């Protein structure tokens, strides 16, 4: 099952290093794993994702385009990717590097087009332990927007953006869901598409 993951992330010293860094990250426990997936495999997953229907969704908090839960989509490649996220091996891997016991994940696909955004929130909901984003966006620069931004906080209230990550292809973001985990997706300022999977480990 772990054939989806780039080998450099799988050896024991790498896992030890990641598990040390994760809880120490500021402004809250997180990790950014670049070139995480096997390039050939994730390219295929991206192609299949872009063939799906994305429903436009809008509220006070967001404006974006989202697929149905990936587990419900009749697509062999996406099912395989979903099953990989829910495999015992990968859940054990996530548990090891985050030092948080997880056993399953949900998953949806997202496209953020021009003007789409997700305003600051902490993701807290019953059972959610680790949030993840698989960023599959191509060709973004800082001026294109769409960054994942993490907020500093005071007394569990967000205060200011502490860190921002420009969308990059084949990058896995992980962060611990907590009263401090305020984050947002900055408005997309370009006609490029910000493509990702996202969900939570439970």
């Amino acid at each position, binding site marked *: 099952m772990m054939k989806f993951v780039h080998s450099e992330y799988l050896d024991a010293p790498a896992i030890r290093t990641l598990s040390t860094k994760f809880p120490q990250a500021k402004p809250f426990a997180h990790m950014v794993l670049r070139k995480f997936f096997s390039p050939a495999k994730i390219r295929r997953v991206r192609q299949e994702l872009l063939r799906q229907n994305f429903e436009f969704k809008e509220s*006070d*908090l967001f404006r974006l385009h989202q697929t149905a839960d990936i587990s419900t989509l009749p697509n062999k490649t996406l099912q395989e990717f979903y099953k990989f996220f829910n495999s015992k091996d990968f859940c054990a891997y996530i548990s090891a590097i985050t030092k948080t016991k997880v056993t399953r994940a949900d998953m949806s696909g997202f496209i953020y087009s021009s*003007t789409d955004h997700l*305003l600051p929130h902490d993701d807290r909901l019953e059972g959610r332990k680790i949030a993840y984003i698989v960023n599959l966006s191509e060709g973004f620069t800082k001026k294109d*927007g769409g960054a994942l931004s993490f*907020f500093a906080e005071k007394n569990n*209230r*967000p205060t200011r953006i502490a860190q921002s990550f420009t969308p990059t292809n084949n990058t896995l973001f992980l962060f611990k869901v907590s009263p401090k985990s305020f984050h947002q997706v900055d*408005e997309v300022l370009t006609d490029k598409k910000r493509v990702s999977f996202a969900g939570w480990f439970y």
Partner: protein
Amino acid sequence: MVLLIAEQYYLTSVLRAAAQRFAKEGSIQLGQFLPPEAFRKALPLQKAALREHYLPDQYHCHEPKSVSAAVKQLQRWLKTKEAAAIISAIIDDRVRYKESCLCVYAHRDYTVRHDKNIEPPGYDVLLDLTPRWNARACGHHSYVDADGNELIRIPVAGNTLAIISRPNGVQKFVKYVNHFAGKDRRVVLEARFS
């Protein structure tokens, strides 16, 4: 005598027609509410120095550091018996002024519903002083039920007065202002009546 609001809104027939529409829809947006000269006097707000208000999980908006005498006059008018009488005639109920603020929304500004910021039921009155606006920029007021379903949307429209009934469970937000706003600002005198 210089009228502060457009002459037509002193006419019983106009207020009666507005009342009928309000009764049917729960909101109304009255166009050309100020005489052109009074509306023009609010335009310098587009370039006024601003004070930022930022609580990331609740709001990001601005207020002018100072306002002209003409705008202060509009703020005072909302507290008058005349304003209350016009609003009462339209909603067919007696109202009392509670509070108001002059809000400026620029690119990246928004408000969101929040458990720590529940508004009591009442009537909202929005005097829109925005001279020009790209409708693609959003920045409209949206009124939603407890499940987030939009009940009423008040589009950005300069020189309008919107009156919105906000019963229990209905909350409002200002939709995130996106980059189509450019350097334009939405300026709204927001008042609450009970």
